[in-house]
């Protein structure tokens, strides 16, 4: 049978099976009673708890999905694009009708830890409960207290726009059975306190693996932990985060990691695209101890297998020679003829995973879009990059991107003009 016949058939079978599972057993989830107790209104109003919750909500970048541009923070509205459809982030303010005003702490915990809505429906894993399940009850309590302290905003959450059969929430029972196990963070007694703190932040609230890992056809993260992956529908590549041999951050020091997360740029690279938003909204607000902890944890990620040397049916030498001409004309003034950039101002391109990641998407989109790294307290007036979408055609963009992926110490595949054309009109949100 053809693939296009098999996939819908499999999906429909899964949907039916999912409905059955939901009826038969998973309904138990409907009455999950969290073991985390309730919160009195006095405890909720504790300013120290609320402040800690604000910090943790920033660490989890909750506002990133639960706010719309130009709207009030946490009032919902942003639609997260996925291959299955658009899923809006709901209103998290304490409005009783449209927000979580009627949610008890147990309801909140059930969502965060089990991925279950107050009415018992399963939540779509666009909400990263797969990571948040590692958040401790204490931290969840603080976040809940913070959200309850926000001004209530009346704003209906748009309905999710998913294609069949993903619009049937019952199908999620199957997905959950295959890809989700609720469970807390298990500290590793053999590691330092800093490592454990970093692991907790990266694996839990930071939900880094939700972007920095490959996803399979059913939208579940697969492959090696934090080994990088394409962000579906947003058309960016979240690179591998290993700092060891053949890793995406090979050659980075702990200081570089901290600099990037705190200021948006480091001597080895700058944050752009979705990571610029993450730095601006989330990581720049983390304390130094937590940033150091994250760097400590990332430094322990294992080395990666060397990537096989790219092979191409095209005349790579001719392409990169032509690409070098474009580079000399448009790029070398800032990034240097040697691709080393200017420390603290313009990122190097030699050895930069934004250039060498497997797909070439990041380099193509950055050449087309240019832009500013995030404006942060540590870098309030960043230098920017011109967009080249107007000046360079698909062929020239492909040439220059192929050149920088092959120049100096870089050994990544070339890209073709057809690929560039695909990324000219991609979502910016």
């Amino acid at each position: 049978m053809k693939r296009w016949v098999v996939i819908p058939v499999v999906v429909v079978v899964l949907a039916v099976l999912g409905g059955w599972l939901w009826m038969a057993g998973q309904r138990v989830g409907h009455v999950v009673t969290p073991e985390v107790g309730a919160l009195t209104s006095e405890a909720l109003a504790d300013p120290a708890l609320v402040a800690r919750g604000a910090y943790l909500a920033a660490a989890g970048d909750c506002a990133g999905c639960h706010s719309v541009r130009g709207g009030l923070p946490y009032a919902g509205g942003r639609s997260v694009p996925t291959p299955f459809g658009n899923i809006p982030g709901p209103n998290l303010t304490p409005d009783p009708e449209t927000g979580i005003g009627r949610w008890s702490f147990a309801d909140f915990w059930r969502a965060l830890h089990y991925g279950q809505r107050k009415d018992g429906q399963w939540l779509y894993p666009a909400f990263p409960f797969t990571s948040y399940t590692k958040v401790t009850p204490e931290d969840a309590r603080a976040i809940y207290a913070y959200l309850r302290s926000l001004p209530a905003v009346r704003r209906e959450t748009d309905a999710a726009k998913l294609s069949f059969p993903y619009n049937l929430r019952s199908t999620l029972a199957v997905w959950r059975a295959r890809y989700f196990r609720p469970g807390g963070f298990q500290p590793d007694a053999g590691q330092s306190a800093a490592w454990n703190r970093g692991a907790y932040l990266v694996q839990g609230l930071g939900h880094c693996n939700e972007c920095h890992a490959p996803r399979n056809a059913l939208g579940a993260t697969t492959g090696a932990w934090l080994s990088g992956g394409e962000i579906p529908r947003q058309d960016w590549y979240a690179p591998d985060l290993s700092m060891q041999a053949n890793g995406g951050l090979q050659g980075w020091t702990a200081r570089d990691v901290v600099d990037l997360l705190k200021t948006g740029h480091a001597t080895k690279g700058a944050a752009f695209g979705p990571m610029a938003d993450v730095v601006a909204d989330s990581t720049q607000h983390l304390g130094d101890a937590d940033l150091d902890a994250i760097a400590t944890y990332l430094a322990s990620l294992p080395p990666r297998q060397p990537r096989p040397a790219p092979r191409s049916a095209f005349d790579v030498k001719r392409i990169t020679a032509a690409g070098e001409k474009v580079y000399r004309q448009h790029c070398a003034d800032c990034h240097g003829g040697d691709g080393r950039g200017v420390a603290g101002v313009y990122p190097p391109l030699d050895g930069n995973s934004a250039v060498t990641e497997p797909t070439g998407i990041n380099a193509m989109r950055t050449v087309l879009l240019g832009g500013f790294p995030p404006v942060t307290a540590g870098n309030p007036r960043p230098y920017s990059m011109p967009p080249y979408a107007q000046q360079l055609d698909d062929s020239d963009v492909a040439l220059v991107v192929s050149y920088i992926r092959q120049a100096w110490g870089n050994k990544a595949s070339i890209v073709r003009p057809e690929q560039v054309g695909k990324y000219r009109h991609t979502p910016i949100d």
Partner: protein
Amino acid sequence: MAAAFLVAAMAPGAFGQDAAAPQVPDTLQQRIAACTTCHGVHGEGTPGSKYFPRLAGKPAGYLARQIQNFQDGLRKYPPMEYTVRNLSPAYMHEIADYFSAQQVPYARSPVPPVTAAVLQRGEQLARDGDPQRKVPACASCHGVELTGVEPAIPGLVGLPYDYISSQLGAWRTHTRAMRKPDCMAVVAGRLQESDITAVAAWLASRTLPAHVRPQPPGTVKPPLSCGVLEVPGAGA
């Protein structure tokens, strides 16, 4: 002494240990290459593009508000929305002040061929409006010579035809909006499509007035209610 040396060594452009490392001027102009590549180093626009608008000399309040509107999604144009998405209010204002302070000669963009009658209709709309359709004159808000009004109303001189007509179209299709009540959406909604061609062609082809700076604050009385003009220091 040692401290002074360290500071100097850390200044951008002073990383010159490496002969290949480019020298980078520590100026705003250098920092905003993302803006100047389309709008010109002095905000003169790029007439050859027939689209990118001039920013030089426009009121700073207006320019800062436009950056904010792109960031908030009120104005829709993906390249601008992406570029400004993470700018802080302070940086936005610094950039707006820079372009507002630039004084460079005006250049003209090509205008599509239109008849004398069309240009006459355009001039009529700009200077007198169309009372029958309740369209106020452009000049009633944008200044007698259409050079704008401090601190918030932009000038309409020296803009490309494509830019003006697409902005009026954008107000009709709600891809450009501003704080409510959105007076420009009302005006654009009352125009006929042929009016948009007429007024854009006349504005883009008009001989420049002798003085192109915006009029002083408080010198116009807008005939429509405009949300943006009710915020102190804000811009349309």
